[in-house]
């Protein structure tokens, strides 16, 4: 069966005066109907750019320089802006990090929801309003009729994020891309939003791409995950497996450096020395080699490819 979404050898560059920066370097990903995929990495790893590139939201000076994005059998990476609008916000929706910034402060919730629907479908205002109400109920918003008349500032952060999820559901998308949807929220609210996303994926048979730096969230919500480092996927596969038995030394370090995973309280945490290279200055060979405790001569000369590490996990490491 063909996949719902496929990224083939995707490369995204940013053209700067000093030369091109490769933000995404040969990323391959697949996503099936109803599947949840986590995209993990530290800031600057390229996880958000990957998410943005799927719906062609990369703005100048960035551009997709190589590779294909295939959605439902169509190569959407070659679509014109006009044609892309039928996909973006319609069949593939996106949820952003800051619920404060995503909603327009000068329009009511109802106006923004109806506008979204009318942009994608020929539909009367009354019908659009009914759909909006139905979606608000789906995200468990109390007294939805009242909310339609309210402005974003009247709602709390968690409530706003629910509204945004409701907006992204309006057009019954096949995929939702959620870019750090709970980073700006408190833990108790985060847990509720994650539950909601998981529940919706099951009930609507939607696929979810969850972009986050929080391994705890990924391990609870997703079935598969991909770990990114300096623009490349360095490990991907079944979430449960990766979290319990990480193959790549970076993933291993990342998991061990979280307080409360392997180290007893009060003792020193396992730390990865150094920091992620800037994209202008990626070391030759494996990008992780200066920080790696397994480093050998080959790591500084040859870039490792993703290879099958067994148990449904693929990792890009010469040593493992």
């Amino acid at each position: 069966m063909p996949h719902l979404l496929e990224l083939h050898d995707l490369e995204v560059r940013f053209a700067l005066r000093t030369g091109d920066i490769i933000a995404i370097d040969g990323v391959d990903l697949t996503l099936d109907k109803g599947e949840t995929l986590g995209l993990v990495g530290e800031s600057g790893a390229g996880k958000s750019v990957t998410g943005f590139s799927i719906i062609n939201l990369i703005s100048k000076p960035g551009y997709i320089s190589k590779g294909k994005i295939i959605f439902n059998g169509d190569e959407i990476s070659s679509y014109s802006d006009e044609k892309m609008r039928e996909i973006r916000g319609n069949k593939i929706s996106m949820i952003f990090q800051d619920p404060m910034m995503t909603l327009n402060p000068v329009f009511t919730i109802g106006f923004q929801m109806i506008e979204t629907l009318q942009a994608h479908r020929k539909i009367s205002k009354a019908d659009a309003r009914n759909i909006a109400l139905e979606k608000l109920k789906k995200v468990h918003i109390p007294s939805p009729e009242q909310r339609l008349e309210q402005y974003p500032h009247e709602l709390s952060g968690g409530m706003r994020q629910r509204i945004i999820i409701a907006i992204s559901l309006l057009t019954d998308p096949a995929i939702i891309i959620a870019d750090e949807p709970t980073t700006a929220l408190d833990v108790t609210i985060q847990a509720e939003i994650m539950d909601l996303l998981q529940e919706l994926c099951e009930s609507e048979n939607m696929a979810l791409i969850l972009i986050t730096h929080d391994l705890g969230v990924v391990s609870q919500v997703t079935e598969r995950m991909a770990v990114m480092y300096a623009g490349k996927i360095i490990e991907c596969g079944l979430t449960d497996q990766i979290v319990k038995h990480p193959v790549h030394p970076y993933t291993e370090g990342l998991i061990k450096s979280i307080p409360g995973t392997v180290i007893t309280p009060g003792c020193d945490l396992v730390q990865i020395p150094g920091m992620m290279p800037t994209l202008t200055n990626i070391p030759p060979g494996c990008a992780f080699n200066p920080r790696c405790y397994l480093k050998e001569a080959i790591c500084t000369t040859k870039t490792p490819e993703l290879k099958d590490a067994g148990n449904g996990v693929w990792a890009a490491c010469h040593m493992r």
Partner: protein
Amino acid sequence: MNTDNIILSIRNVVKHFDISGGFLDQIRFKKGRFRLEETTVKAVNDVSLFIKKGETLSVVGESGCGKSTLARVVMGLYPPNSGEVHYGGKRIDNLNHKQMLPFRKKMQMIFQDPYASLNPRKTVQQTLEEPLRFHHPELSGNEINDKIDQVMEQVGVDQAWIKRYPHEFSGGQRQRISIARGLILDPEFIVADEPVSALDVSIQAQILNLLMKAGRERDLTYLFITHDLSVVRHISTRVAVMYLGTICELAKAEDLFADPRHPYTKALLSAIPVVGEKRAKQIKLKGEVPTPVHLPTGCVFHARCVYANERCLHQIPELLTLDNGTCIACHAVEENRIIS
């Protein structure tokens, strides 16, 4: 309780912020009359706690619970509306600027955002030597440089970078420099307000290790403000959980995580995502945190609490000490109404 060991204690501290604005903003029309009404944010309400020498006390809570305000009251950055702050047995909240100076040397603060807390126009050298020149005018240039070198080495920043400006450093390195600035006066007590929240996980581990190492080597006492419960569990001796400006539970870290007693603490702990574990049944809270402008009557948590009864609605629960030293403010715990 041995009081000799107590380095800092705060008693019944209250901090409200007036946000009512100007005269015209305060006018309200009620029951046929115009009247003036003040709007205040009740950030911290009647909080008492003490910190023993050498321990790490963490204050946790969700945004808006007053934990950062509490830290600033402790440091003397905000004067409390009422209540007292004692440091080493002396009351410090009513001191004037000059009387406060010797305490400022002993108490230092590390802030959350290393991008905002370092002056972009000052080199690392200038940033680090300023507190020394201010508090120790007797030191010579060489002595100052020695001191800076020593601190830079301790926090793991290359001494060769001393002439650089903050923008040339990454977030983790900037936080190291902030910590160096906090350590350079050899303080006894450090207030760290979310020192690792803005950092990536792998960098966060480096900074936490650094803070713990400095704590051991210099025998520091920390007041650690954070919302990240896994960090709290790792570094704290004792933990205070705050909700809407009041402490609802204060316990030894291992007790709190093994056996949370307050309904809010239970819900908070059950919400932490743990790597490699599918979520156990999460305790869902109804509703949302009320605003600190209009505090609920009685227990501030009652509207979201499943154990709330008539008494919780009207009477504010006091912080009671249980047998194992855990302090808890909850009528339901007191009356043994919670069956776990």
